[in-house]
């Protein structure tokens, strides 16, 4: 595989309102691979996700981030999306008056222009909603307006399925979901990776709890604390966190530092 492929983050530092939150992040998500990013609340996971997506409130002060060789940090958020990056928001915004179906169509057009005839778009939508166990009435509702937490997360997953990104960052898509919803999210990720468009998709699954990882097996697990990745390992690292929580790792890392 080429040295430039992947979602590659190196030495990334970022501040919010003049406070440094990310203190040097190095991370490579290769095409087709699933990485889990775990860490206690407040460790900077969402800050990393939003910085990579180009949120204007987050200032990147050092480092680089490239997507299959394209440098992203100077691109607008929409150009990053068109380059193939997708963020499933921890807290998706509600937009009253904008119908889900119209929005999905506009987003698909923006990200993959002219790639689907209307009939094919509708067929794809029906198929993806079915995988996520979503009722067709969703299409006529307004974007995240009055949605329950679980409904919002399913809609994020539907958007990921419809946009078929090269790299997806899922920011706590699992939190607040019941068992069925969690399984639906797992199925949706599996379906994307089984599809022609999504076969090579790389994923960064941010989670606070290891629950989701029972449905999606990560190739690599990273642990983030205080704005740094402090530990990287295999699936067994997630199991250790499930057993011990973060305290053991904190002590170990603290002792090493």
């Amino acid at each position, binding site marked *: 595989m080429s040295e430039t492929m992947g979602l590659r983050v190196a030495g990334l530092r970022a501040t919010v309102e003049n406070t440094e939150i990310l203190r040097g992040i190095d991370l490579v998500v290769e095409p087709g691979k699933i990485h889990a990013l775990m860490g206690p609340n407040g460790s900077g996971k969402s800050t990393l996700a939003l910085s990579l*997506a*180009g*949120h*204007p*409130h987050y200032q990147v002060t050092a480092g680089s981030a490239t997507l299959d060789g394209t440098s992203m940090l100077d691109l*607008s*958020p*929409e150009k*990053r*999306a*068109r380059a193939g990056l*997708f*963020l499933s*928001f921890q807290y*998706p*915004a*509600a*937009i*009253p*008056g*904008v119908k889900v179906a119209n*929005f999905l169509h*506009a*987003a698909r057009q*923006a*990200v993959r222009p002219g790639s689907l005839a209307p009939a094919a778009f509708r067929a794809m939508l029906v198929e993806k909603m079915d995988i996520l166990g979503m009722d067709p009435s969703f299409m006529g509702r*307004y*974007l995240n307006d009055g949605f329950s937490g679980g409904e919002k997360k399913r809609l994020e997953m539907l*958007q990921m399925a419809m*946009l078929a990104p090269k790299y997806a960052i899922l920011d706590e898509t699992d939190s607040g979901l019941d068992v069925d919803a969690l399984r639906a999210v797992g199925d949706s990720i599996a379906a994307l990776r089984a599809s022609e468009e999504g076969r090579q998709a790389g994923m960064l699954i941010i989670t606070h709890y290891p629950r989701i990882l029972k449905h999606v097996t990560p190739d690599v697990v990273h642990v983030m604390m205080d704005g740094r990745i402090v530990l990287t390992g295999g699936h067994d690292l997630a199991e250790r966190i499930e057993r011990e929580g973060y305290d053991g790792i904190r002590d170990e890392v603290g002792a090493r530092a």
Partner: protein
Amino acid sequence: MPEGLLAPPTRDRLQSAANAADVRILAHAARARAVDLYLTNPSGRTRPNRRWKIDLDALAFDPLPAEAAKHEVAFSGSLGRAIALPLATAAREHAETLAHITRRIDLERSKFGALALGLSSFGALVHVPADYDVAEPIVITYNIDAIPAFPRTLVLLEPGARATVIVEFVNPTGAFVVGTSELIVEERAHLHYATAQRVDSGSVAVECALSHVGRDGSIALASADFGEGLILRDRDTSLDASGARMEQSAIFLPTGNGHLDVAATVRHVAGNTSSQTVVKAAAGDESIARFLGNIVILPHAAGSDASLRDDALILGPKAHIDSVPALEIACNDVKAYHGATIGAIDDEQIFYLRSRGLDENEARRTIALGFFKPVVDAFPTASLRESLTRRIVETLR
């Protein structure tokens, strides 16, 4: 803005204009009294100040221009058994119907209603007989000439009748229009009444709308105002008997130096009446908009339900929107709701859409169209809804 060169008319000049107006529509004595009331009735607005520069109690215009007016009224839509006529014809052929309406509509208590009454010489009458449903919308188009115009629109729906009436204005630049909507909806009748207009810089458009709704009757009022001129609406809806309902929807989208000023009152006179008001306002550039929303629930109106929802988006750095609700409730057993929001377009919403590939302008436009969607949907025809959507998009560009 009104022409800077003009001054407010003197009483003499208003009286001369009233004397010159068509006596077949209204007798001189009644006109003379009405223009006097125009001078003495308050506009209900604050005195001019740094922000609200125009004195709405003393608008500048010449009521008696040198040339004769060439205003016209046209109708479209198939009427069936309903009647739609120019006011002059109606005054000759349907004097009884006109009297039936004007007995119940008290224009004289409104400043601008009194002015339109005193000086009006054209307008339209729509009359729908009992239990008749006019399937197609009735469109009234006023082609306004370049001198002051005082069109009156009178609508009478007899018991059980149903109709949609759309009022359109074709205004020249520098138009000065003070019109009325005089609407009677009798028991079990339903009226959908909509108007949309763009008022250019230098033009003035004023409406006094007075409505009465009878037992189990309903009225849906929809208005959309765009542009850089002065737009003023005074609306007063009276729910006179049990089961009467009103739904009122308004789009405000002033731009440039536009000034939009709307006072809407709903009176719950009888019990078990309901009203719902939804205003979506967005002010661009240096424009200003004001919404005075009054809910009045009278002592015998138990079981009434009134809601008032008013959301405002500030689009321009110097734009300003005021929303002033007033609830006057003289009865215990009622429901009254008021909710308002004001602010710029939310950054998180913009970022969310941009993260899905929409550029910043598309994102703003999408959010603003979504903001207006509930009120656009309150307009009666698909073509009107589409043209409103187009206008919103053009205005936001």
